[in-house]
């Protein structure tokens, strides 16, 4: 196998392109052809860890209990902006069961002098029980110097120190484009701040063994937590081990280490005992990230024949206190349609609210709502069918780079989706429901996203003496079923049953694997695992051929048996190696770079059927049809679950979810799961899921791309378009609550 070498690679992550160097080993395999007879990959398989999930035995970070473990709770700022003048912990420390209090005064590394939002951490207590730690928080006396603040996006826009242009893009000449347009739609769209509310809270359990920290953390990225915590503590990477076995959701909010990780580690070090620091639901809704609220101005112009001639999109996203980056709201505008003249700007707006973080397709969700709503408004104005308008402006090559796509079957998504929803039923002006005040309508919207994954990612496959296999790779399973997909890939290459493949993962002591984010996990790790399995198989066959006295090229591995020669000997692996007693064959694999001559993207189309009660403004979504093009689907059962979940999360975003701030105090008024409404089993419509399924053989050796984020992207726009079709109410503000629908109806 050729040794390590450094290669160039281009990867898309969370809507942006990154050019990086990566270290790879060996030679890549070609993707399986479309007609390959695969026995594991592409088959619906229940989760390999399903039994643990249904029996309560799955151990999540919050379930980790270690001998002598202490509980930490965090004191948070009641002010949206203040200077911490003094912290007095004397009374807290005198409470029975309290072991330590850390704050600005004694742990300046972990607490800032200036707090910038309600809920920023000010001090932390470690105590023998959670209840005592909670009691102690009330005994900590903090003197604050209260400072001026702004919490609402539209208030902060006026302030130049808070609103900054972060990105701009243009092609062609939009001014000339709009002059040549026969129809122009100009509209402003607004979206609310969405709170992740992963059911497992953010948290960590820290334990030191001498100089080495082991951190159990609920995270989407064990390696990024390791880097962050090592830097925060000023120690080497070898001194921090991060473990995440089962994980209760993250949706983008758990992509790095948090203040809770640092606090748990610092207290555990100081006290010489394990410390658990897990946030409660209120804290989750203040201090662990959110999807930015957005204000978006869009202009879309087209010729009479429906050909898009110009698009202009300016987006302001409220990032709270996060100044480093902003979501790519204008990404879909720049890349979805074949429009010759496009100009866009992305602004970041700082407010005194909790910092935003990635949230499942950050930016693309907000931007697609605006763009795909505007496209329907344009179709209405031109008097053309909205689906026809989209097909009319279909991008055959990537509009930004000019490159061909590795594969694009959005056309098939449109065709199949239209068939499944019954698109020909759609009439301008909608249809009447059971009674005169109920109006029914259909809507469509399109999704574009990355998710091709890329290097670096590594795996080893260890073959045991009885023919079973262990796959070792650091990846964590956010809950999407990645571990099962990875096991299927290894089982395919090793020709083993799925229950003979185990995974050792979620641990930084294993080979590097990337974050479970950016829809990249399976497409990044899977190809490395396939190569590792192929390497292990090759070594096994070489050794077996020697023992069987045949040439290695004549030996094949089928169902744990080595078959040598044409119709030759068939011997179980365990028998061939009987004399060896013990051995480990170790196969290695790394993720190779993406092709540089083509563009990797995933596509999809959602169709919605809704019923609007024109008396109350309430919207009932009856059906969502979701058709996605991600190349080869490794596990259609898990994949369908992921699409259903994305659609349902988007349904919440479209109709009910939104953080409510109290402007005078800066407090979040609905920081709980009663007032912040997420969909329940009673809210969900019929969701029909299909995949185009044609392998994208240029993408990687699996022929598949990622699916985590695509299904949340187009749903809100599809619902908005269906509402407009049903009753003529164009709602340009999310969530589309009954009062907003009524308001739009009256316009």
């Amino acid at each position, binding site marked *: 196998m050729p040794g390590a070498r450094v290669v160039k690679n281009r990867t898309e992550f969370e809507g942006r392109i990154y050019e990086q160097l990566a270290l790879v080993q060996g030679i890549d395999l070609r993707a399986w052809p479309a007609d390959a007879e695969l026995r594991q990959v592409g088959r619906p398989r*229940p*989760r390999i860890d*399903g*039994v643990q*999930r*249904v*029996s*309560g*035995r*799955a*151990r*999540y970070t*919050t*379930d980790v*209990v270690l001998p002598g473990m202490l509980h930490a709770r965090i004191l948070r700022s009641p002010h949206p902006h203040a200077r911490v003048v003094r912290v007095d912990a004397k009374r807290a420390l005198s409470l029975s069961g309290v072991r330590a209090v850390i704050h600005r005064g004694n742990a300046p590394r972990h607490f800032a002098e200036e707090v910038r939002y309600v809920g920023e951490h000010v001090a932390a207590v470690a105590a023998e*029980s*959670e*209840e005592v730690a909670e009691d102690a928080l009330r005994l900590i006396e903090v003197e604050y110097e209260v400072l001026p603040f702004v919490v609402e996006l539209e208030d902060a826009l006026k302030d130049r120190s808070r609103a900054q242009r972060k990105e701009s893009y243009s092609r062609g000449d939009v001014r000339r484009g709009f002059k040549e347009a026969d129809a122009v739609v100009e509209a402003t769209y607004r979206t609310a701040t969405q709170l*992740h*509310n*992963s*059911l*497992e*809270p953010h948290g960590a359990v820290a334990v030191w063994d001498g100089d080495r920290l082991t951190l159990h953390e609920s995270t989407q990225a064990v390696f990024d937590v390791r880097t962050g915590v090592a830097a925060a503590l000023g120690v080497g990477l070898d001194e921090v081990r991060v473990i995440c076995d*089962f*994980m*209760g*959701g993250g*949706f983008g909010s758990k992509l790095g280490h948090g203040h809770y990780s640092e606090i748990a580690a610092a207290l555990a070090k100081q006290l010489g005992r394990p410390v658990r620091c897990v946030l*409660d*639901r209120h804290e989750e809704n203040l201090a662990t990230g959110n999807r930015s609220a957005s204000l978006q101005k869009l202009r879309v112009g087209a010729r009479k024949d429906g050909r898009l001639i110009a698009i202009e999109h300016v987006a302001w996203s409220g990032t709270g206190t996060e100044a480093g980056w902003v979501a790519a709201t204008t990404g879909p505008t720049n890349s979805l349609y074949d429009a010759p003249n496009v100009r866009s700007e992305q602004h970041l707006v700082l407010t005194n609210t909790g910092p935003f973080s990635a949230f499942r397709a950050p930016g693309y969700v907000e931007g697609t709502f605006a763009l795909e709503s505007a496209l329907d408004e344009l179709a209405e104005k031109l008097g053309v069918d909205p689906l026809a308008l989209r097909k009319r402006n279909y991008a055959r090559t990537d509009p930004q780079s000019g490159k061909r796509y590795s594969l694009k079957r959005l056309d098939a998504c449109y065709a199949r989706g239209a068939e499944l929803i019954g698109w020909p039923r759609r009439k301008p002006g909608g249809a009447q429901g059971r009674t005169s005040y109920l109006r029914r309508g259909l809507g469509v919207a399109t999704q574009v996203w990355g998710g091709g994954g890329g290097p670096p990612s590594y795996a080893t496959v260890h073959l045991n003496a009885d023919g079973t296999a262990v796959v070792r790779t650091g990846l964590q399973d*956010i*809950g*999407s*079923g990645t571990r099962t997909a990875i096991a299927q890939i290894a089982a395919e290459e090793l020709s083993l049953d799925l229950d003979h493949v185990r995974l050792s993962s979620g641990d930084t002591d294993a080979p590097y694997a990337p974050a479970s984010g950016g829809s990249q996990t399976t497409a990044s790790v899977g190809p490395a695992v396939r190569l590792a399995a192929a390497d292990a198989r090759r070594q096994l066959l070489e050794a077996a051929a020697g023992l069987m006295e045949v040439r290695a090229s004549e030996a094949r591995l089928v169902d744990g048996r080595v078959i040598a020669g044409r119709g030759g000997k068939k011997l179980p692996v365990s028998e061939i190696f009987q004399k060896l007693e013990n051995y480990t064959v170790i196969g290695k694999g790394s993720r190779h770079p993406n092709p540089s001559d083509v563009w990797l993207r995933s596509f999809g189309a959602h169709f919605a059927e809704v019923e609007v009660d024109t008396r109350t403004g309430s919207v009932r979504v009856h059906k969502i049809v979701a058709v996605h093009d991600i190349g080869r689907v490794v596990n259609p*059962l*898990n994949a*369908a*679950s*992921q699409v*259903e*979940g*994305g*659609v*349902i*999360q988007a349904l919440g975003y479209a109709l009910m979810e939104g953080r409510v701030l109290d402007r005078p105090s800066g407090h979040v008024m609905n920081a*709980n*799961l*009663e007032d912040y409404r*997420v*969909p*329940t*089993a*009673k809210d*969900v419509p*019929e*969701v029909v899921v299909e995949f185009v399924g044609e392998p994208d053989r240029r993408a990687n050796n699996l022929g598949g791309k990622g699916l985590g984020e695509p299904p949340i992207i187009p749903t809100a726009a599809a619902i908005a378009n269906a509402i407009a079709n049903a009753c003529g109410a164009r709602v340009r503000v999310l969530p589309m609550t009954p009062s907003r629908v009524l308001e739009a109806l009256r316009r």
Partner: protein
Amino acid sequence: MPIRLDVNGEARSVHAAPRRTLLDVLRYDLGLTGAKKVCDRGDCGACTVLVDGQPIYACLMLAVACEGKRIETIEGSAPELDAIQQAFVAHDAYQCGYCTPGQIMALAGLLRYLAQPSEEQVRIAVAGNLCRCGAYPKIVAAGLAAARARAKAK
């Protein structure tokens, strides 16, 4: 204070402060971490267990109020559990799985009193159990499949 509980058919005694919830006693004092703490105020259902056969939110019940009561959790062997658990695995009725023990216990409570529920009744039974991953369509399908499997076995 001392509290005697019947947990999954075993007599258990714990010493807990009067303010300790049943959920904290199960998780911290008895090591039964299947029931999850998500909201700790009765909004989400992740801590659902059966108390005297009824599904309840363990975070809203004080442990002292359970003195002498029969408590069944996901770790136990309630007669409904097997069919529901198998159906959840077969239907992929979860994603992250954090809400799963609560969903299953809510359905166990339903099937104990209603052997052949309608789809709407299954939906109502889990309407108090949030799933942020959005596994609802398959949770409902699994609930119905479990009911059918049990009816067939009888």
